[in-house]
């Protein structure tokens, strides 16, 4: 597979994320290669909150990792705010499902790490770290190690750590997938509050339909493997991001509609196993 020349790109001058013709194939050392993503195109507008939804194994996490620049792009091109993605960078902050905190660092040192890498002066680093630890409600836990925290608290640390380096784009890989139902809905509300305070471009991978519809402006539903774009559902409700939206009739209808799209694909994926 060849990579297309960057000059022909439509995304080169555009803000937000432009995904063009992206394919990705996993090549295990033994066995046949697996096509995870097939000719996928998607545009995310600047400061848009988009959710990527699909049955498990549809390549939604792969797509996110490609946006993060963690894996080499085999085909197609991804630009983020006009820059072609060639590797990871602090302009794109990522939050993983299993937190990926440094277990040997305290909460404070975890949040400080990225700031040190940004070569900020010491006083400023301490200041920012304190602010973001407060923001996610972990004041008083600065000196705790991740192993002493609950899942929800760990994910708060991970979010604080990512937000602290102030990325333009936030990539979230099923960030609340490992949390219990109560903690998850609390974290969703907090994410809404954080986003309302300072909107960023967010790509949020999930397989929770309700979560996707609640949080996102648009939901990109993917097909079963190999992942392509099935449909984009507009899930922006008047009044902006608000947890109370979830009680309205429009919301429930939109969840049903999206759920049916995902169901079709999940059934197809199950049959092809």
């Amino acid at each position: 597979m060849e990579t297309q020349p960057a000059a022909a790109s439509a995304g080169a001058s555009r803000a937000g994320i432009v995904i063009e013709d992206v394919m990705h194939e996993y090549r295990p050392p033994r066995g046949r290669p697996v096509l995870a993503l097939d000719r996928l195109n998607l545009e995310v507008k600047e400061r848009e909150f988009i959710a990527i939804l699909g049955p498990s194994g549809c390549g939604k996490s792969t797509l996110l990792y490609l946006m993060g620049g963690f894996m080499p792009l085999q085909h197609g091109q991804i630009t983020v705010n006009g820059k072609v993605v060639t590797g990871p960078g602090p302009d794109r902050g990522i939050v993983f499902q299993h937190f990926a905190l440094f277990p040997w660092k305290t909460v404070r040192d975890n949040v400080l790490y990225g700031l040190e890498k940004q070569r900020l002066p010491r006083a400023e680093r301490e200041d920012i770290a304190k602010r973001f630890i407060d923001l996610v409600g972990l004041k008083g836990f600065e000196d705790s190690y991740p192993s002493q925290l609950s899942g929800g608290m760990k994910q708060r640390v991970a979010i604080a750590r990512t937000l602290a380096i102030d990325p333009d784009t936030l990539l979230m890989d099923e960030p609340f997938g490992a949390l219990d139902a109560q903690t998850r809905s609390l974290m969703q509300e907090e994410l809404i509050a954080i986003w309302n305070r300072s909107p960023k471009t967010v790509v949020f991978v999930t397989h929770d339909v309700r979560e996707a519809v609640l949080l996102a402006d648009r939901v990109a539903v993917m097909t079963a493997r190999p992942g392509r774009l099935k449909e984009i559902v507009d899930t922006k409700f008047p009044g902006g991001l608000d947890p109370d939206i979830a009680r309205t009739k429009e919301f429930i209808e939109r969840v049903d509609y999206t759920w049916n799209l995902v169901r079709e694909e999940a059934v197809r994926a199950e049959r092809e196993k």
Partner: protein
Amino acid sequence: MTHKIIATLWRYSPLLLLAAVWEGVTQAHLVSQYALPTLSGVLTSMWTLAIDPDGLVYHTSRSIMRGAAGLGAAVVLGTTAGVLMAWYRPVRLLLKPFIQMFYPLPKSALIPLTIMWIGLGDPSKITLIFIGSLLPIVVSSFNATRGVDSVLIWSARGMGATDRELLWEVVVPAALPEIMNGYRVALALCFILVVAGELIIANNGIGFLINFLGEGGDYKGMFAGVITISLVGFLADRGYIMLMRRILIWRE
């Protein structure tokens, strides 16, 4: 405090039981005293040897010195080699065949070789201990480094860490628990090699002392030597575990 002592005694009560059986069986002359001297006799002999300036303390300290020198060198070089092999492909391609070839070799088979090449003194024994403990350390450091969760590496990269920072600030600390488990295996191995080397040829060291007393017919003294070295090995292992807990305090 007293609770703790009682708990510890209870934990090791099977050993106390063994000691009681040993003493009982030998006192009742159920086994020949040449095969197994009485425990009380062994302990008396141990005390005599312990206060003798040329006794247990001297020989044990010689053994510990050899072990520490060999193991220390193996820890430094083995960890470096293992980590670099995992992190840099050329290093891996260069060193892997050697590791694979030498790993299954019983290191005690090298004793005649080290004597032939390096001589009878300390350097040849330390070399043997070094070679013997090196391989498990290389292998565990290599596996530990390769096993570091890639999301940790991705996170650090995403925050702007350079390759070198990634290795020292993320990969090595993340691999440290497993690397340190490898040291523990090497520590046990190192005791085997110290004694094996000294049993074959030496003029001091606990292995030498056991051999010397045994050949001279002092079986009580020989048993005292065996108990001393196993006690030292036990304490070293316990001490190491305590050190490990301290260093890896961030684990649950």
